[in-house]
């Protein structure tokens, strides 16, 4: 039998007290894990959030004046040569300097015309888009009914457009003199997309004789979403190096959200620190009461030859094990709490993922709480002499 086996046997002997200690450790670990996991989920869902509310960066023609903007806020009169897309992409990649961080460029061609819906005409903004790229940039894009276009003569309409113009699935839409079939109705996102008709990009270019031209280049990138300074540098670099265009960051939602999230994290971390401090005091009290009830046992162990360092090994190993166990239980509890928080309150929808780094953090925090709180009482009690521990019995 080794000192470690003695420690383990003692944990099981004092099941009740060990359970109290475990609870005192599990609570802060679970809270910390919940906060870290929730923050992580929020962080990873930023791109999704961004896609709901807009892109990271928009590049549009330089001479877009207010009077040339449609009622839904898009330019249908000025254009950018399609070749600029690659130039913009290269400048962004040079600015970000992270080959793993993908720069998604989504081009659109906007045209305004009276679209014939059945027999009725309706003023509309037609957006020529590449559905595949658009969906890559906006994974949250959903159809309320129908499907995505599979041929060049199929279109999708925005949710508000469909309800206001009474467009149903399979209705015929005459765009640029050619007939399209409405095969999908887009969910509403409180953006200009809700009011548009979407048709395949190359078809729209051809129908409106705008081959080689685009109205806008939308850019999405996670690094730029997170770093306001880098985003501004990217804007400046594009504007400096490419003539006749203007890069804007009109949708700084994700940056703001990230900043808010960081501030929230600081506040929540303060709560975690407070919980850890309370937990350490609780553990300290429990350990002290346990050790004082073991004074005679300490005397006995010393009398059979235990040195002070061996006693410290026995006691601290006990608390190390309980700390590790607290971390092991606290982390999955944090996962469950994160899931419940997300399901019923935050609705980030990022899912629950086991993060090995956070498992290690949970274990370290568990061990830290346990050892910090137990070090002083174990250190003090291990110094007690055999005669002191048996004083009541040895008084002759």
């Amino acid at each position, binding site marked *: *039998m*080794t*000192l470690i086996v*003695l420690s383990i*046997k*003692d944990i*099981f*002997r004092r099941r009740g007290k060990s359970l109290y200690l475990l609870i005192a450790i599990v609570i802060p670990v679970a809270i910390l894990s919940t906060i870290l996991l929730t923050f992580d989920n929020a962080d990873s869902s930023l791109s999704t959030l961004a896609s709901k509310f807009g892109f990271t960066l928009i590049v549009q023609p330089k001479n877009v004046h207010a009077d040339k903007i449609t009622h839904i806020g898009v330019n249908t009169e000025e254009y950018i040569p399609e070749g600029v897309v690659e130039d913009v992409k290269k400048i962004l990649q040079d600015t970000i300097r992270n080959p793993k961080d993908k720069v998604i460029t989504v081009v659109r061609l906007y045209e305004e015309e009276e679209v014939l819906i059945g027999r009725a005409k309706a003023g509309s903004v037609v957006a020529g888009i590449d559905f595949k790229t658009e969906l890559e940039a906006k994974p949250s894009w959903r159809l309320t009914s129908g499907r995505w276009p599979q041929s060049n003569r199929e279109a999708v309409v925005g949710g508000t457009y469909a309800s206001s113009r009474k467009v149903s699935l399979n209705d015929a839409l005459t765009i640029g003199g050619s007939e399209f079939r409405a095969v999908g109705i887009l969910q509403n996102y409180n953006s200009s997309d809700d009011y548009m008709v979407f048709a395949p990009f190359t078809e729209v270019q051809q129908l409106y004789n705008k081959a080689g031209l685009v109205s806008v280049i939308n850019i999405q990138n996670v690094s730029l979403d997170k770093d306001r300074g880098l985003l501004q540098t990217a804007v400046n670099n594009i504007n400096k190096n490419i003539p006749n265009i203007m890069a804007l960051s009109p949708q700084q939602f994700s940056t703001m959200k990230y900043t808010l999230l960081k501030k929230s994290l600081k506040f929540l971390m303060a709560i975690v620190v407070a919980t850890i401090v309370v937990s350490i005091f609780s553990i300290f009290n429990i350990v002290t009461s346990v050790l004082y009830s073991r004074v*005679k*046992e300490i*005397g*006995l*162990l010393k*009398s*059979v*030859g*235990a*040195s002070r360092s*061996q006693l410290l090994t026995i006691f601290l190993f006990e608390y190390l094990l309980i700390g590790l166990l607290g971390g092991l239980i606290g982390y999955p509890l944090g996962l469950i709490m994160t899931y419940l928080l997300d399901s019923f309150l935050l609705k980030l929808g990022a899912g629950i993922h086991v993060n090995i780094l956070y498992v290690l953090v949970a274990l370290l925090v568990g061990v830290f709480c346990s050892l910090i709180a137990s070090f002083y009482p174990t250190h003090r009690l291990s110094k007690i*002499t*055999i*005669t002191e521990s*048996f004083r*009541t*019995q*040895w*008084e*002759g």
Partner: protein
Amino acid sequence: MGGMIMDRSSNAPFLELKNVNKTFNLSSGQVIALEHVSLTIGKGELVALVGPSGSGKTTLLNIIGSLDRPSKGEVILEGVRIDALSEENLVQFRREKFSFIFQDAKPLRMLNVLENTLLPFNFFKPNNRNGNIRDEGIEVIKSLGLGHRIYHMPSQLSGGEIQRVAIARALITHPAMILADEPTANLDRDNRLFVIDTFRRLSKEKGIAIVFSTHDLEIADRATRIVHLKDGVFLKDEAVCCAPCSV
């Protein structure tokens, strides 16, 4: 206190206390626990310390066993002044030379009888052992009449059996000296006699010096020597022999 006076000069001096004094500084003032105590104990002696409460029996046991240091005087064991050893050296010294039996030191509740007996070897390795230490533990337990209790937990034992486990634990390290404080205090007569007669057998057969404190004169009479103390002062040191053995 019957028995005959023995010639102690035949015993080789094993432990020697020279003019030992012990005072405690308490808030209520200074208390003299031992005053000018000189004592020589030979190997194989079974010494009973008797005296009223507060006479200094426990203090003397503590000083003999190096659990406490004298305020004045010397404690010499096999030529080594143990009162002058560092705490670290004392731990090593105690492991090699002493075993302790306490009145109320119950076995560890999470260990069975055998594990409690072998407890010291969790902290140091046994010296000069040829056989298996576990087998030796079982033999010691059996020799104390606990053969049917080897794997029982302390909660399943009677008071007398618990004290026998303490004796087994004391014997397993092959000590030169066993120090026992009131080892029979909470036991019935049969168990008291069993404990003291076991001590007699061990001191005679194995040459272990055993010093124990007691209030029980029937038990003290079975020792080979009785040391009387009162108010920390040596009253009388008498040797006895031929006490009846009940084992």
